[in-house]
């Protein structure tokens, strides 16, 4: 309403051209990351008896078999009691298989990292799609001006899906002890038989892992493509034609329902099954929160970048402020979910549940990162983004964004590493390199996707509302 003679905002199409500097920077990050990854892989602490194809070699089976043996031995005493490495009975069944005698093959660390990054960017791209859908469903106006950014981000879904599928296909027996157990095919009552894993095998098996992941993410991506194409069509029809918008709302409604229900299953399959004996009913929400807050942060980063390059002329500090509020609010939401999972398990101290945190909270190897997780994903954004001025300051927002993205990478790292490679996990050249590479590739990919259509959805019915968006002084 402020637009009358106060100020008139011109809404016009904007064609984004990736600046040479941005190309150089993103591709440079990707290449440097790749080099560091290669260096990291070649300098992995190798053990002569272990190779990349560990599951083909009987010698390295011992590392995995340890669990089966321990579980079997435990059956004699109490199903909840497990014999630890030193031969002592412990209350906590170990979910990580830390056995100095039989370490996992060194190359597993590479696959575990690929899983961390692939999954992290998968949930970010999915959350970007969810952002579009939820804004359609909520009939939101303010976000119309920036909707082309999540539209570009969702094009990364197939890339992340392929990476995750490759990891699952090639390295599932190294990463998931249940997959290795499945491979062993132990008969009921035979030595090494695991009642829990056998009971879960109807869901937790390689077929469902591979085809379930493929199916779920493909369905999400089809919705993403549909919403993208409807948005593109809207640019070409005359202003005021609501056909495409109405269709988008309907598809968005269907997507939010499907995604809301099935995303939990996806997170159980890919990440929660790393600790197959353990389960958490809030895990799906927790993973959603991680992806959602990261996606909002990255949307904010792209808005800041494009504005600094003179694009997105109708996007004002008001939109940036709203994105800052989102980052702030959903950091708290993430913490809420994180704490809800942690606190109940910590307090109840049921052995099969607390094992998960025993590996992270009590283990000196992950303890620092465990606390760092809360500091980076809650304390830092909470304090930095609390005031209004900070939320409107691009520099402060960028710093908070950097902390949040790294922090949530650390979050996914902590979900995956203790259960897959345990004592071999470490943030080294490989980890930093691969994360840098993924960031570079993702940024380049999204910038390229942004060039494929106007940055401003000029015919969106709410584009004017978005242009004049004002949250007040």
């Amino acid at each position, binding site marked *: *309403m*402020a637009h*009358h*003679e*106060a100020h008139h905002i011109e809404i016009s199409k904007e064609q984004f051209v990736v600046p040479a500097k941005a190309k150089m920077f993103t591709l440079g990050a990707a290449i440097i990351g790749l080099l560091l990854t290669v260096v990291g892989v070649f300098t992995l602490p190798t053990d002569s008896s272990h190779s990349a194809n560990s599951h083909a070699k009987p010698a390295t089976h011992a590392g995995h078999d340890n669990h089966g043996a321990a579980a079997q031995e435990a059956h004699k005493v109490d199903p909840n009691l497990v014999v630890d490495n030193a031969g002592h009975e412990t209350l906590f069944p170990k979910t990580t298989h830390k056995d100095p005698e039989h370490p996992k093959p060194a190359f597993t660390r590479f696959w575990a990292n690929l899983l961390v990054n692939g999954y992290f960017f998968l949930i970010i791209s999915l959350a970007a799609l969810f952002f579009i859908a939820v804004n359609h469903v909520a009939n939101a106006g303010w976000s119309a001006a920036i909707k082309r950014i999540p539209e570009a981000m969702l094009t990364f879904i197939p890339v992340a899906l392929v990476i995750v599928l490759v990891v699952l296909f090639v390295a599932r027996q190294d990463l998931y002890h249940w997959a290795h157990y499945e491979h062993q095919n132990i008969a009921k009552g035979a030595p090494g038989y695991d009642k829990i894993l056998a009971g879960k095998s109807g869901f937790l098996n390689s077929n469902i892992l591979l085809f379930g992941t493929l199916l779920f993410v493909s369905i999400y991506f089809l919705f993403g493509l549909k919403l993208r194409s409807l948005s593109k069509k809207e640019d070409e029809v005359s202003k005021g034609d609501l056909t495409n918008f109405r269709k988008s709302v309907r598809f968005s409604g269907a997507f939010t329902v499907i995604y809301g229900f099935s995303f939990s299953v996806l997170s159980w399959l890919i990440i929660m099954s790393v600790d197959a004996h353990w389960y958490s009913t809030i895990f799906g929400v927790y993973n959603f929160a991680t992806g959602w807050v990261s996606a909002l942060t990255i949307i904010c980063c792209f808005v800041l970048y494009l504005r600094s390059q003179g694009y997105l002329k109708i996007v004002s500090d008001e939109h940036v402020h709203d994105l800052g509020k989102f980052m702030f609010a959903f950091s708290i939401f993430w913490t809420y979910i994180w704490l809800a999972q942690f*606190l109940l398990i910590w*307090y109840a*101290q049921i052995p099969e549940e607390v094992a998960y945190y025993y590996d992270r909270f009590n283990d000196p190897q992950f303890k620092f990162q465990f606390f760092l997780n809360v500091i980076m994903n809650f304390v830092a954004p909470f304090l930095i983004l609390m005031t209004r001025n900070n939320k409107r300051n691009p520099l402060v927002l960028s710093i908070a964004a950097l902390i949040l993205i790294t922090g949530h990478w650390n979050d996914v790292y902590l979900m995956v590493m203790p259960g897959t490679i345990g004592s071999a996990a470490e943030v080294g050249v490989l980890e930093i390199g691969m994360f840098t590479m993924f960031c570079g590739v993702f940024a380049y990919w999204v910038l390229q996707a942004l060039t494929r259509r106007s940055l401003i959805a000029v015919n969106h019915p709410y584009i004017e509302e978005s242009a004049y968006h004002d949250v*007040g002084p």
Partner: protein
Amino acid sequence: MGIIDKNVMLRNRGKMLLGVYEDEEKVMAAAKELTGHGIPVLDVYTPYPLHGLDRIIGIKRTNLTVIAFICGLTGFSLAALMIWYMNVHDWPMNVGNKPLIFATSWIPVMFESTVLLTAFGMAFFFFWRNRLAHGIEPELLDDRQTDDRMVVVVEAGNVNEQEVLSIYRKTGAVELRERLNGTQKVVG
């Protein structure tokens, strides 16, 4: 708009010049014109919010957030104090051999208490600040300001009254009034 203004008690003020409008665009134009001439606009009363008007007439941002922060901090500390007194000091309670002082298990209570006191505190201060309570006579400059009229208010005194009235007239006010000690007089 009266929500943010410091002196919400209009009866405490001196002579005021009122421009009554029936169109929001004209109100915006009048506000711009007045502030452009260096005439401070005391307030504008409208039946619905006019976005951007608060910036034009230079209304300061609400301090309610500061109140919220203080109330939240109070709730947080009170909860911590309460738990400490009950479960540590007065009657040490061993629950599953968990540490007595460990903030993690205190968080739900501290969180709820923070939210509770923030919400109550903000609601209380909001009503108190705006004199919104039973028994308080509302000070309407025009009975229709809650319906379809908008009232621009300029405080007489340091301004050229004729200039203000001519700006009102020029920008399309349907009625011009003076208000002194609670009585109004139509001047054009």
